[in-house]
């Protein structure tokens, strides 16, 4: 029988719920300052980083050469690790003030609170993506490259037309996949893999004829990771705008202006070119397929 105790329980629950609501009443996120930071404001004591006096940099786990070495972003070895430390130095952070945090691709771009000040992980800048996150100025111009192994049916391909009948693969969520669907447009449906390791494995297995990766990765995979790996050639940009990597920041982040300035300064003083030469050397010479 339903007796008053139940009713009072319901009432109590309602009161409790109302109290809970009051407790978690909408609060504004910490006020986001305008991004028009003056150059002088770009110093550790002025920057609104996650942890005061520290720069928290996010990247995926694992990360791969030549972008990082030995899955250790904190080593300063590898192109992106070196760029990250160069930016930190430009902003006035010493090496021991840089904190690395691991963020998977999906978490890095999710709308929730970010756990990093900026994230560096070969993020290509696109207009669509800019609606969800901030990008810094680009720090690397990238081209997509088809690789395969000796004996594959596309090993001798000289043009995009030679790739029409090929079964190609790429990592999910990459512009490499778009290079297949928008530039090469093969007749067979492309295969999509969780990561480049899986793609590489299926290339070795022969279930795909070739895989598409960015050029530095292509050099690394074919020279260090694949037996008999060969570069078939580079693929032209899908759209008119060149593909470039940028650092990802929270949408409307107070740091975007400063980080972009740092990247621009590093490009202007030749630091970026020097880092590129050190870590991505020898990445010229792959023919462009047309």
């Amino acid at each position, binding site marked *: 029988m339903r007796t008053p105790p139940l009713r009072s329980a319901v009432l109590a629950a309602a009161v409790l719920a109302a109290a809970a609501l009051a407790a978690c009443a909408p609060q504004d996120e910490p006020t986001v300052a305008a991004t028009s930071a003056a150059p002088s404001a770009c110093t550790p004591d002025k920057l609104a980083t996650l942890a005061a006096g520290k720069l928290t940099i996010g990247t995926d786990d694992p990360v791969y050469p030549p972008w990082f070495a030995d899955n250790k972003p904190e080593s300063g070895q590898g192109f992106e690790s070196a760029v990250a430390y160069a930016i930190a130095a430009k902003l006035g952070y010493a090496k021991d003030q840089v904190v690395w945090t691991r963020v998977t691709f999906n978490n890095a771009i999710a*709308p929730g609170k970010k756990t990093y000040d900026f994230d560096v992980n070969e993020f290509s800048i696109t207009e669509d993506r800019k*609606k969800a996150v901030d990008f810094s100025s680009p720090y690397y111009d990238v081209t997509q490259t088809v690789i395969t192994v000796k004996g594959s049916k596309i090993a001798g391909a000289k043009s995009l037309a030679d790739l029409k009948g090929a079964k190609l693969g790429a990592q*999910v969520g990459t512009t490499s996949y778009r290079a297949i669907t928008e530039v090469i447009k093969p007749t067979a449906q492309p*295969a999509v893999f969780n990561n480049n390791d899986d793609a590489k494995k299926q290339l070795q297995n022969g279930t795909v004829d070739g895989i598409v990766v960015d050029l530095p990765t292509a050099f690394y995979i074919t020279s260090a990771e694949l037996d008999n790996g060969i570069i078939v050639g580079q693929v032209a940009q899908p759209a008119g705008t060149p593909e470039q990597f940028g650092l990802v920041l929270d949408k409307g982040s107070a740091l975007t202006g400063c980080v972009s300035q740092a990247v621009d300064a590093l490009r202007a003083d030749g630091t970026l070119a020097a880092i590129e030469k050190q870590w991505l050397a020898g990445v010229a010479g792959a023919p462009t397929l047309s």
Partner: protein
Amino acid sequence: MTATTPAYEVSALQRERLAYRRRQTITSIVIAAASTAVLGVLAVVAITGAPGWDRVRETFLNAEVARESLPEILRGLWLNVQLLFFCAIGALLLGLGVAVLRTLRPAVFFPLRALATSYTYLFRGMPLLIVLYLLTFGVPGLRLQGTPPLLVLGGIALVITYGAYLAEVFRAGIESVHPSQRAAARSLGLTYRQTMRHVVLPQAVRRVAPPLLNDLVALQKDVGLISLAGPIDAIRVAQIQTAETYNYTPYVVAGVLFVLMAIPLIAVTDWVTLRAARRQSAEGSA
């Protein structure tokens, strides 16, 4: 004593009871409605009032993105549907076969029983993802002549994993049939095979129909894991589209489509459960 019974009249006490019950029913309906309304309002206020609500709505519930992503996701869903169809049939057959093997009594069948038992132990414990990896990455690596395509290999991984679950469900059903049923069937002169075919299995399958269908609903969601080997299913399409725009709406679209696809199967499960309950106990009409 009179010969005719007087017309039945509800006693004052009973009328009071009925009125009381009616009042109670109305009260409980009102309370239920009010608490639902309170909870609903609280949920809406809490979610839409959250500081990040606009961004979440833009990222997860963008109508334009949903419209654009739908055709591709439907194309991916077709792969899920086809896989579900073939894998469900395969897993049901395999499960039934293994369950029958596990219930064979004669000592001479011990090796078969042991094999069937270890199979169910192994594949109920082994994560599906790992079975998929082994079959779709390992087997092609052997480079054997006539290796089936990846879709078939992935399908086999699903069938042997879900076959193990279904085998246990079937076995539970077979063992729930009272031994007297077998004894009666054998005493009528039916062979073991006939007893299974005409007496045991029909009862067993009917009893375990709800859990069987439940496992099939689970299978329906898991067929998409085959995308790990390269094929593009509905969830993979959503993932690709999310990566292109950093907008999560395609996932929501795929999720809704999966629920729509599951509803018929779930409804059938409920209906079968209800019917079985009614048949087994006359009072189970609630």
